[in-house]
């Protein structure tokens, strides 16, 4: 099948195309140089063309996501959709059902989204939900930061064994990267405690957050993984946590970057940094320290961050940071779900209302935007809301509009939200406005590159997957700064979305499900002998301390309808 998209205004940062009118040719799901005269023609005159969006950090599939749906029928009741033609029914505003998740990402021109927290023991659940999530390509990040084997190997100082174990677990769970959440803290939570800062050891295991970050960062490069370690720092959400954040950022500095696939330059990916940029000692004297965090990112090249922008909605928080969710529950008094997972991790879920009339959420809104506006290079920062933690992913177009329009922000600050946004942050003094090119960077090229997938994702050059979004907004006649509502509307409802070369969205509506999304996972073999030895050690521990049999642990191939391994080191 051939397509040609004519006359669109193209933003393709990886190929340094900035608002040029050009044609895009598609054949057999890929972008090509030219097509025959029989190609289907799509006219995109006066419209924006960007690569399909790439979400590097979201929560869309798996155990805690489903608990978020299950404990909150009120969230489903206010946003339900009917069965319609090719579309399945579903519900959920902050945590949509799987089918709605696929449709809603596609509608905004997003074609890839990564589930950011997968407990290895529950990996099968995440993959089952992926099977029911249409259209989008995806991957899941297994949790390593409180894993007993990892902590034991690091305590012994045996990085080789740790690498062999990580390699085995990534394959067994069909996972994509090393995810670290509150290292040492979630293990402490298994006894009802937490750690404070990076130098506080986990009970019994006696390794600190700093040890875990450093060890796993080295393991990451020993394995040549496509993505750097994906770090959720300690002390999330606590006033004064910015010092922990900066100290954590510094740990992997100096480790040599070594991806076997892709072309990332970072050895650290720090996620939802908005929640980690707080000064002060309590919620009264709290201030934003986002400028210090942004300054660090500006001065260092080993790091890429995402923001976790607060969207000022009622939402559902969910994380593997078990102690933090319990704290949140004691703070807001709303219902609390928790799941501690043997030998591996924990999690929690609590609803949260980021009211624009309340002081703290308004300040958090400002902190996130400060990060966006103070980090100079959009090649170092990704757009996320840590969906649904700081707000649902369906608000990405609104966040983009805030970034492109100082007028929009000023209207928010002066008329809509609590004065703490001005008092506690510097957001009111920042008048930088993102260009459409920079928006394409933070939502397309930067995440694709740091994920190690920029050979086929996040750009529109020859050889890329034909994942393309087209928006009905004419940058030659319209100004996103002035006409911010129009740009938000256009970005919310793509006029066309191509996925693997097929039209899946037209005029803001899903018209075709296309083929199933790819499941990316990392295939590596660090040292075959050692991996066997480690596997035997793991099997022994399984017999005694796990509650499932070793043979029933790995995720079978049946759970990946479109498996797409990405190689790390292969000996």
């Amino acid at each position, binding site marked *: 099948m051939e397509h040609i998209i004519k006359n669109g205004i193209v933003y393709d940062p990886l190929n340094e195309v900035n608002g040029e009118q050009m044609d895009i040719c598609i054949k057999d799901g890929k972008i090509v140089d030219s097509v025959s005269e029989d190609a289907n023609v799509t006219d995109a005159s006066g419209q924006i063309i960007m690569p399909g969006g790439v979400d590097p950090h979201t929560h869309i599939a798996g155990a805690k996501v*489903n608990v978020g749906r299950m404990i909150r029928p009120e*969230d*489903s009741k206010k946003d*339900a959709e009917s069965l319609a033609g090719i579309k399945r029914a579903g519900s959920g505003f902050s945590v949509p*059902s799987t089918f709605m998740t696929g449709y809603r990402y596609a509608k905004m021109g997003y074609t890839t989204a990564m589930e950011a927290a997968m407990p290895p023991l529950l990996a*099968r659940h995440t993959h089952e939900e992926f099977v029911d999530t249409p259209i989008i390509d995806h991957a899941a990040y297994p949790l390593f930061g409180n894993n007993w084997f990892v902590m034991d190997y690091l305590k012994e100082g045996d990085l080789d064994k740790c690498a062999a174990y990580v390699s085995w677990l990534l394959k067994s769970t069909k996972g994509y990267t090393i995810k670290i959440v509150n290292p040492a803290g979630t293990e402490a939570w298994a006894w*009802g405690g937490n750690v404070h800062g990076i130098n506080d050891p986990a009970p019994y295991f006696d390794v600190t957050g700093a040890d875990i970050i450093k060890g796993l960062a080295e393991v990451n490069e020993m394995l040549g993984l496509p993505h750097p370690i994906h770090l959720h720092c300690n002390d999330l959400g606590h006033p004064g946590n910015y010092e922990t954040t900066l100290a954590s950022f510094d740990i992997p500095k100096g480790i040599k970057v070594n991806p076997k696939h892709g072309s990332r330059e970072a050895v650290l990916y720090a996620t939802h940094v908005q929640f980690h940029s707080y000064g002060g000692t309590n919620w009264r004297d709290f201030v934003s320290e986002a400028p210090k965090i942004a300054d660090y990112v500006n001065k260092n090249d080993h790091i890429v961050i995402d923001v976790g922008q607060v969207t000022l909605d009622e939402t559902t928080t969910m994380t593997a940071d078990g102690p933090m969710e319990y704290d949140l529950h004691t703070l807001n008094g709303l219902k609390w779900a*928790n799941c501690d997972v043997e030998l591996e991790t924990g999690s929690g879920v609590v609803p949260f209302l980021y009211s624009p009339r309340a002081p703290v959420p308004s300040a958090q809104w400002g902190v996130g935007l400060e990060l966006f506006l103070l980090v100079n290079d959009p090649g170092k920062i990704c757009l996320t809301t840590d969906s649904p933690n700081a707000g649902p992913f369906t608000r990405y177009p609104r966040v983009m509009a805030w970034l492109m329009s100082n007028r929009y922000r000023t209207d928010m600050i002066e008329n809509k939200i609590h004065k703490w946004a001005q008092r506690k942050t510097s957001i009111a003094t920042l008048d930088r406005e993102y260009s459409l090119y920079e928006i394409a960077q933070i939502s397309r090229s930067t995440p694709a590159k740091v994920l190690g997938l920029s050979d086929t994702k996040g750009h529109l050059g020859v050889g890329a997957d034909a994942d393309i979004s087209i928006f009905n907004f004419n940058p030659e006649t319209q100004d996103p700064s002035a006409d911010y509502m129009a740009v938000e509307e256009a970005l919310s409802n793509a006029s066309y979305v191509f996925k693997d070369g097929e039209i899946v969205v037209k005029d803001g509506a899903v018209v075709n499900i296309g083929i199933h999304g790819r499941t990316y996972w990392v295939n590596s073999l660090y040292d075959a002998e050692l991996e066997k030895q480690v596997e035997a050690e793991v099997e022994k521990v399984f017999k005694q301390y796990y509650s499932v049999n070793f043979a029933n642990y790995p995720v079978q191939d049946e759970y990946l309808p479109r498996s797409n391994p990405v190689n790390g080191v292969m000996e």
Partner: protein
Amino acid sequence: MELVKNVVCPFCGTLCDDIICKVEDNEIVGTKNACRIGHSKFVHAEGAERYRKPLMRKSGELVEVSMDEAIDKAATILAESKRPLMYGWSCTECDAQAVGVELAEEARAVIDNTASVCHGPSVLALQDVGYPICTFGEVKNRADVVVYWGCNPMHAHPRHLSRNVFGRGFFRDRGRPDRTLIVVDPRKSDSSKLADIHLQLDFNKDYELLDAMRAVLLGHEILYDEVAGIPREKIYEVVDALKNAQFGILFFGMGITHSRGKHRNIDTAIMLVEDLNDSAKFTLIPMRGHYNVTGFNQVCTWESGYPYCVDFSTGTPRYNPGETGSNDLLQNKETDGMMVIASDPGAHFPQKALERMAEIPVIAIEPHRTPTTEMADVVIPPAIVGMETDGTAYRMEGVPIRMRKVVDSGLLPDREILKRILKKVKEIKAASK
């Protein structure tokens, strides 16, 4: 004789996955590691009459028919009913459940599972106040205080205690002696006999006892000599044990979900656990019955947004237990066509619901002769999951395990039967447009 290892038991929510099946001539003739109930399921203990051919009721008798005829009839019942009900789902695997939800959407049906008459009150309670749980391994490795409330695992989940209480864990290397076992049950049971403390409370007084315990925990004194038949001093003693736990766990069953107070009991139990986290680490796990009752709630939630009692009559998922539950629809004589799969309401529903079932067309997708099939107009026997076909099941606390196929029955799996019905329903709906 062949030994098949790491088989997952398709009986209870404990979902033991260490069963060894002895297979001879494509028959399971023995097991190792399984409990007596699991064993008898594997080897088809006496008394179970297995169907191998589709049946339809003609002139009052069930007679063998072709698969096509049975599928056509089942699809016609679903497509032509004004208010179809699709009930059961807890003894099959998740792919079948997923096709079921799609079929419910197409047929504009109400879909509901056995939780409706089981841990439904627990679902309502977790939607009220939350759901702090953990996986089994956490209990084995860490728990020093274990509470079973309103359940008798020695009979209903026979290996539950051996795996979670007697089992030796990492931080509890002596197993049972390292733990305080508390059983709360108005009866003396084989589980309560093993307990360090048996709180033999009065019938239907769970709420009172829970409330008193919460009050004590929050620093109040009990003004009566006893609450729910339990002496004041005993309550103080138990609360003391709970709040000094390093890692505590509350397992709870039908004895509390279905005694007076129902979901309010569970509300309070969950809040007790939440309160206990002020001083201890405490979690809970509902003692789910069928091996994959949890799986249906998971699948139905990720596909529709709601765990059970989902009404697709308008095309949009709607959830209102009390109105959209199976018994509501049957007892109010609202449903006019019912599909039963992977469960036996004929044996378990109240008389008034059964009276309605007898009046309306009933489809049973069921491997054995049961009270439900006696009422059915169409019976389609599937391969039994975990023995004759594979698929995913979720353990009671949500750990997903792949069920194995051990022998070949030549029968279609549930998911295949449902896909065929779905295709036919789509055809009928398209033709009537």
